[in-house]
């Protein structure tokens, strides 16, 4: 993580992960062991570390698991980071003792391994065997990735591309690069690499597996870019029959359900939610992993907005502990809330603020400020009557609108016609400004041109007039 931080700064998500603004104090529903089982690869450590940073009740457990996870690999930086965090929260744990021996041993092993792989690769290059060169690069890339040198890993993986010979190779290469980009939170690169592999033609079964990976990966990347609607659509198309092992380096089936469901809830209207989410056979399989998301969506579709919101609210701590979702949760939640309020208000011409408070406000929290913001944004077409404590729907008088528009157009036309006429006459009188090439005779608006140009079509002496510079001494 630290290595990637130095190579790819500036991403929002990164900023969140580095300085945990988000602190979850409630006890989330998740169980660390069960949760982390769903994933393989480097994302496990990232997820554990995030929980360790942000979640007060679980942090010791999570960080201990992170330390163990780091020690099972060979990335020394990761171990040091996890150890440091653990030491600051629980100095008495056995895992909080710095294992210098392991560090030295691993660093040495890493160096030897790097040297070995580089020598091997050199040998392959000299022999000019394409397949060996490709494999050598892949091995080197994997090694660099394992020890946390992400930019070197990306270089090595990129070199693989020169020597690819089968579609499988292209697929592998793209996946490796996407994996690096995921760790760097470089969503655009993820999308471009995933895009490259999604166009590959291959066998049916393979195709299905690739489809699942590309959909999940690009869905997560689109989420990272804040492109919620596209992310939702992409995730909704994920093939449910593919084993999660195809994409569990990125996300679990539970994650697909959560990301897809939440984003759909935030961006789609009720009809679309019914048709594309609840009635979508393939996505249903995912939703079964996360029944409360499904519940929330069907509650929204059935118009029971406050229940829907309270379900979401109860899962908020869990979602805040997800590496990809965390930075976006406030936005997604407020989008859903706004949609609920707007939907709630549609059938009424006016609603008392008290009833809105009852439906959407928490204890000691009035929705009024939120309403004000929504009206300002234009997402809610209503006015507040502060005296009678009402929210009144805006019902524009069509006749007035037509009249106003018609008159505005007529006046604008008239004004513009006059202005254009005036400008034409300025040109006719030769009164345009021009700052260059003054004529010595100056002073006369549009001096007469020599007759010369009249005969031949050649050079036209520009009809200039006085200098355009005027001092504003009398301003």
């Amino acid at each position, binding site marked *: 993580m630290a290595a990637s931080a130095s190579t790819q700064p500036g991403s929002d998500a990164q900023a969140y992960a580095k300085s945990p603004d988000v602190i979850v104090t409630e006890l989330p529903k998740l169980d660390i062991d069960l949760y982390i089982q769903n994933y393989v690869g480097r994302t496990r450590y990232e997820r554990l570390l995030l929980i360790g940073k942000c979640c007060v009740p679980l942090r010791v457990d999570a960080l201990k698991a992170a330390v163990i996870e780091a020690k099972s690999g060979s990335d020394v930086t990761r171990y040091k980071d996890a150890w440091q965090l653990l030491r600051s929260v629980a100095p008495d744990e056995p895992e909080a003792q710095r294992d210098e021996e392991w560090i030295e041993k691993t660093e040495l092993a890493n160096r030897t391994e790097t040297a070995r792989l580089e020598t091997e690769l050199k040998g392959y290059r000299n022999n000019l065997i394409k397949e060996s060169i490709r494999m050598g690069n892949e091995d080197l890339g994997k090694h660099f990735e394992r020890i946390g040198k992400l930019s070197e890993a990306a270089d090595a993986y990129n070199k693989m591309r020169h020597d690819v010979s089968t579609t499988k190779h292209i697929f592998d290469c793209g996946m490796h690069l996407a994996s690096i980009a995921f760790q760097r939170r470089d969503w655009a690169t993820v999308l471009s690499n995933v895009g490259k592999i999604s166009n590959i033609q291959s066998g049916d079964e393979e195709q299905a597996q690739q489809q699942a990976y590309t959909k999940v990966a690009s869905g997560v990347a689109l989420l990272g870019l804040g492109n919620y609607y596209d992310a939702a659509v992409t995730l909704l198309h994920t093939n449910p029959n593919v084993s999660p092992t195809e994409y569990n380096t990125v996300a679990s089936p539970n994650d697909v359900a959560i990301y897809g469901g939440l984003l759909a809830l935030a961006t789609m209207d009720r009809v679309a939610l019914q048709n594309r989410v609840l009635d979508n056979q393939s996505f249903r399989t995912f939703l079964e992993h996360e029944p409360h998301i499904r519940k929330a969506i069907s509650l929204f579709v059935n118009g029971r907005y406050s229940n829907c919101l309270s379900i979401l609210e109860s899962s908020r701590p869990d979602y805040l502990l997800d590496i990809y979702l965390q930075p976006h949760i406030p936005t997604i939640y407020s989008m859903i809330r706004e949609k609920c309020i707007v939907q709630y208000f549609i059938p009424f011409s006016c609603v008392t603020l008290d009833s809105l408070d009852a439906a959407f406000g928490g204890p000691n929290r009035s929705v009024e400020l939120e309403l004000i913001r929504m009206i300002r944004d234009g997402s809610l077409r209503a*006015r507040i*009557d502060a005296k009678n404590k009402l929210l*009144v729907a805006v019902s524009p008088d069509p006749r007035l609108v037509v009249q106003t528009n018609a008159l505005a157009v*007529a006046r604008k036309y008239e004004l513009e016609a006059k202005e254009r*006429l005036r400008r034409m006459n300025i040109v006719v009188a030769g*009164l345009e400004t021009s*700052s260059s090439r003054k004529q010595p005779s100056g002073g006369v608006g549009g001096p007469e041109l020599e007759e010369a140009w*009249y005969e031949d079509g050649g050079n036209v002496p520009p009809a200039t007039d006085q200098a*355009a510079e005027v001092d504003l001494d009398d301003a």
Partner: protein
Amino acid sequence: MDLLKSIFHTFNPDVKAYPSAKAFDTAAKSYAASVTTNLPPAARAVILQQPLEAIQNVQLVDSSTNTIGHLAIIDILLRGPTPAATPRELILDEALRFLLRFDPVQIRYVGPLFKSLLDDLSNFYTPKVAVELLSNAILRIDPSGSVFTSTHLNMAKLAYDANCIEPALKVLDADILYYVRPSASTRLELNDTALQPQNYIPAAGLTDTVKSTSVLEYHFLQAMAYISRRDWPKAQLALERVIGHPAKDKGVSKIMAECYKKWLLVGVLRDGKPPNLPSYITSSTRSIYNGLSEAYNNIASLFPTDGAAALKEEFEKRRAVWEEDQNLSLLEEVLVSYQKWQVINLRRIYHQVSISQIRETTLSAITAETLKDDGEVLMLISEMIESGMLKGELQIGSTAGESYLTFHEEYNSMTEAEFAAEVARCHASIEALTKQYRATNERLGTTKEYARHVLREQKRMDKDTADAGVGFDMNVEDEDLMTGVLGSV
């Protein structure tokens, strides 16, 4: 005295007494010459020696009927040394009477003399009177006020310098559509009733030649006059005329850049948000303006936001810039109106809102804080309603904080009849404009640029028929032609 009579009473100003309009034209011309350039020195001496008699003499003929003679005598009296016994006021009164009643057709025969009288008017009268007389004279010569003359500029200068804008408004409000072309030297029958002001004014010598800078300066002064009256919509239009002035070479003159800065501020004052440039301003000019006025752009873009503190800071930070551009008072006006616009914008959120809520939600840009008590807010709002800036109604409660403001609809609904009348007015005005467009089209048809364009077009046609197969060549030439014409237009 008889000498005077014999000279000045030779002209019969009644058109009906002449067999034809042309005969009147000839008679008026020779009469104008005989009382001005060809006036015997003896007659001039008589006038100067006996001013009272001379005045009485012309009073026998009314100034509205014998304008030519009257002007000649007044001119001699105003400029020549008159005997000390004759009070100056008497002469000035006489001139005043003349200026209010002169005949707009006859005056065309003594155009240069009249114009020089107008030019010197500020030496004879107080600015207030002079402005009033000038605006009256301009509208008597050309009732539509649509032709720009050098007198326009003189009047605007005088009105703005002396800060007496009221009497000048009639002229300032008129839309200027025409500019005189110095080349119109063909001899016209000046009494021809079909003659348009844009034709007879230059032919009669009622204006100096106009420079592009004069046009810019006039609209600038016009805008400044409206700004001093806080008439933002009109000021904005006037400034738009300056910043949108056609330029030959994508350049922007200093006065245009200055006006752009003012235009931004005035637009903010008018609409509460940064104004949009009119469509006829080219993108290159737009980018020049943008580059020239960063400080002003910042202010304009901060104005519609909640950032009162940022606005205040920006204002303080660039104080030197505002002072240098002499826009400080306009900027202060912007700061004052910030809170007003905040209140106005509340109408998009509230139907009714309490005064205390307004106090809490709106900030003053002068202090970057809310107003101190509800009473001040109440004052501000009643002031805004009175000035017509805010459409709404106050319901005064027991305390200022319990008073409520009800927003009214932005636009009042009109009855069908009113609406029809308004539409008819627009229609008529556009019809009239169509005629003027035709006239302009004719004018353009007689320019050399157009003749040249036609010539080239013909040449091209000839060439085309010669080798019709070369479609590509034709296109290239077409493009060339377009750039050539557009470049000069």
